[in-house]
């Protein structure tokens, strides 16, 4: 693995860490509940991107399964919360 790729992966991990921090600030600050759900969904997507970057760094395909699982859980969680905000209950 060439030094260029090593440094690119480090830089990408730093960028994604910063992205997760911004989403966390919005999660705490967001004046309404739907802002917080949006921030949580963005956190899930950033975590999935971190998993993909780690899979590139350690050259192991286990991280793709983890990324797929994170995306599934993120989708289900965000959908359940959005449905609750819209209707007052998740399954009618």
């Amino acid at each position, binding site marked *: 693995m060439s030094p260029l790729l090593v440094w690119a992966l480090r830089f990408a*991990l730093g960028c994604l860490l910063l992205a997760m921090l*911004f*989403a966390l600030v919005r999660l705490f600050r967001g004046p309404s509940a*739907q802002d917080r759900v949006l921030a949580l969904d963005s956190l899930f997507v*950033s975590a999935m*991107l971190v998993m993909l*970057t780690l899979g590139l760094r350690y050259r192991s395909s286990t991280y793709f399964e983890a990324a797929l699982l994170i995306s599934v859980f993120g*989708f289900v969680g965000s959908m359940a919360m959005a449905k609750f*905000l819209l209707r007052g209950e998740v399954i009618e």
Partner: protein
Amino acid sequence: MTASLPLWVDVVTAVLVVAGALLALLGSLGLLRLRSFFQRVHAPTLGATGGTWLLTLATALQFSFVREQFFVHALLIALFIALTAPITTIFLMRAGLFRARLAGQDVPQTVTEQPTPPT
């Protein structure tokens, strides 16, 4: 570790990874800084679409060269996100619209407005 990849593979992978991470950072910055909820809904889609596709392409490229066979397994993740992210965003937008109406804010009363015919 033992396989030595041609340099162009590493360069292209590095460019794709950096571009994808920068797009995700830009989307999160928009999420932090934009002023209203309906503006903020658009921002994370940058990371969900651009970031995911660029990173998945980088992993597909890198792993195809490491394993000497096409590794399109990672594109499954991008396809799943492409299918589910619009559903989540639209649902959340409708929930935000509903709650904004309840709070008495200045938002349209119906999701689909009837177009006014020209007189």
